[in-house]
């Protein structure tokens, strides 16, 4: 695992002191200094002039004396970089007021120089962490992960300019990590991102990657093409299995496991769930042999807190399927439905005419359930003989298997489900599926395959 001191640290004082970027921190210091009288009006003016003079000097260095003027955008970026470096040096002074005193005593230019040295030191550490990440990256085919690790991050280290644009991130970071980095800029952002990604990567590396792949296949369609965080389903399923006191390494949570989890967690309050999850996280860390890695443990604990919140929310729906995914083959229930023989055309037309003449819905339903043996006929009859307010009654007699087969049949024809708010019997069917109770609905959607996936 990486040396903890190489990173800014996941649990740094960053958020405690000031959650904004370094430049925002400098303005906060100036404001606090002015309000508390630490910085007099004259000193504030002197500091502004010193900043202006430094900007002029840095601009001249940037243009290498070739140009007396620069576009406003360039001047803004240069000024932002100055403030970023000064803010970085002032951060950690022990609060805004102490930072204001330090600003007053040291002056703008020396603080900028020190801050820039810190930026360069962070850049060196970032390169080290990146080398570790590159050499230990898990063997995933996820495009966003590979693009970020093997293209975007090298581009950052090739293009980053600590002298003039220290706050910028000259690359495109696509891969989402479980805890996104907030409020940081430039190399600070990248280092913190790499640090968290390293922790997630180390966690993933504890598991047989074939299991990880199969889990991801069950987690979403085409997981290699999706902007998904790989750590999330692995961590969640590992903790899920640990909650059941099962071996967490195989990662697969089956229907029975989900039912057991539902039974275990239902009725518990948020604090009780959090306590159980915390213990389960501990078991996962021990099993994965990462219990002694304090940074990893802290990361997993925080992820466990996040998971507890999600569990509490999912329990309100009485369905943990969305939270604890299964391996792809376990998730797709094999299902074969044999449709009945359709009526001859003349017979079908006669039945439709007869049902249209019926005054009461109950009469139509009697004819529907008594005479119609094929879903293909069902699809023809429903829009012709029933109105908007009658669709629910016409759909209610269908079994789970028939509903699933109907969804499949229709999806093959229409290709896309309409908005439930629309009129028409297919939209009514979509609305009806939403009202089917949790477990039953899950079975129907699962049996319906791709057609059901689109309704999840």
């Amino acid at each position, binding site marked *: 695992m990486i040396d903890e001191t190489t990173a800014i640290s996941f649990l740094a004082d960053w958020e405690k002191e000031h959650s904004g970027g370094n*430049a925002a921190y400098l*303005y906060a210091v100036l404001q606090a200094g002015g309000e508390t009288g630490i910085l007099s009006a004259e000193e504030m003016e002197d500091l*502004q*002039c010193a*900043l*202006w003079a430094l*900007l*002029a000097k840095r*601009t*001249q260095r940037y*243009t290498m004396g*070739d*140009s*007396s*003027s*620069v*576009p*406003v*955008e*360039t*001047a*803004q970026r240069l*000024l*932002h970089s100055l*403030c970023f470096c000064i803010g970085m040096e002032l951060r950690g002074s022990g609060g805004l007021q102490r930072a204001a005193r330090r600003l007053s005593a040291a002056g703008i230019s020396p603080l900028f120089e020190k801050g820039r040295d810190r930026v360069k030191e962070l850049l060196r550490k970032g390169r080290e962490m990146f080398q570790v990440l590159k050499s230990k990256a898990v063997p995933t085919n996820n495009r966003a992960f590979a693009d970020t690790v093997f293209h975007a991050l090298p581009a950052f280290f090739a293009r980053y300019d600590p002298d003039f644009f220290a706050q910028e991130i000259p690359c495109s970071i696509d891969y989402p990590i479980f805890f996104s980095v907030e409020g940081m800029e430039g190399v600070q952002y990248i280092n913190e991102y790499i640090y968290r990604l390293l922790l997630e990567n180390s966690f993933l590396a504890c598991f047989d990657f074939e299991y990880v792949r199969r889990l991801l296949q069950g987690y979403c369609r085409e997981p290699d093409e999706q902007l998904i965080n790989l750590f999330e389903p692995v961590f969640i399923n590992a903790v899920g299995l640990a909650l059941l006191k099962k071996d967490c390494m195989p990662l697969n949570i089956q229907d029975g496991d989900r039912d057991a989890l539902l039974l275990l967690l239902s009725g518990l309050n948020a604090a009780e769930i959090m306590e159980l999850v915390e213990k389960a996280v501990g078991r996962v860390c021990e099993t994965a042999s990462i219990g002694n890695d304090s940074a990893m443990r802290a990361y997993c604990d925080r992820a466990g807190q996040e998971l507890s919140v999600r569990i509490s929310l999912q329990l309100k729906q009485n369905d943990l399927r969305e939270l604890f995914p299964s391996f792809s083959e376990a998730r797709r229930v094999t299902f074969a439905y044999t449709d009945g023989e359709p009526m001859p055309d003349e017979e079908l037309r006669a039945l439709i005419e007869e049902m249209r003449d019926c005054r009461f819905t109950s009469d139509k339903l009697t004819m529907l359930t008594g005479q119609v043996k094929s879903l293909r006929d069902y699809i023809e009859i429903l829009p012709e003989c029933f109105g908007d307010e009658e669709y629910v009654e016409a759909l209610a007699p269908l079994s789970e298997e028939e509903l699933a087969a109907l969804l499949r049949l229709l999806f093959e024809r229409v290709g896309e489900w309409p908005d439930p708010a629309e009129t028409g019997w297919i939209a009514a069917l979509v609305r009806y599926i939403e009202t089917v109770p949790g477990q039953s609905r899950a079975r129907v959607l699962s049996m319906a395959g791709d057609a059901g996936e689109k309704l999840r």
Partner: protein
Amino acid sequence: MDGLPALLQAQGLKAVEELIACNEITVRFGLYLSEEQAQSLMAKRMDALRETGRVEFGEGILKKLIFEFCDSPYIMQDNYVDTLLALQDAFYYFKNELLEQLSDDELLAFMKRHFDGDCEGSLEYLSSSLLEDLCRGARYGQAWEEDDA
């Protein structure tokens, strides 16, 4: 940054004195700036910078413009200030259009060579034709240097 406009306003007016000091050189070519004219030039400089979205530090480009163009046969005392204003506007405009690819000195030298040469003192020809060609060349990666011949 929010503080930038405030910082911009802090820029001093020392440059006016420096423009007037240029008279020591330009008077040899029959050109002279009064204090009022120098102030007007500086004010217009700020307008030109604002309009072109640029920030300038130090004394600005006017002093260099004066020294570059003061020996031009096409500039007389009567049109001195107006020419400087037009050249200043053109300079900032084309500095942007050239995507920062030419240094101040290179752009000034180009302007002067053509102003005195094929433009025969026509600012309109300089701006609308030659400088536009130069910008197109810069955008499409063509070499801007020309044969002096």
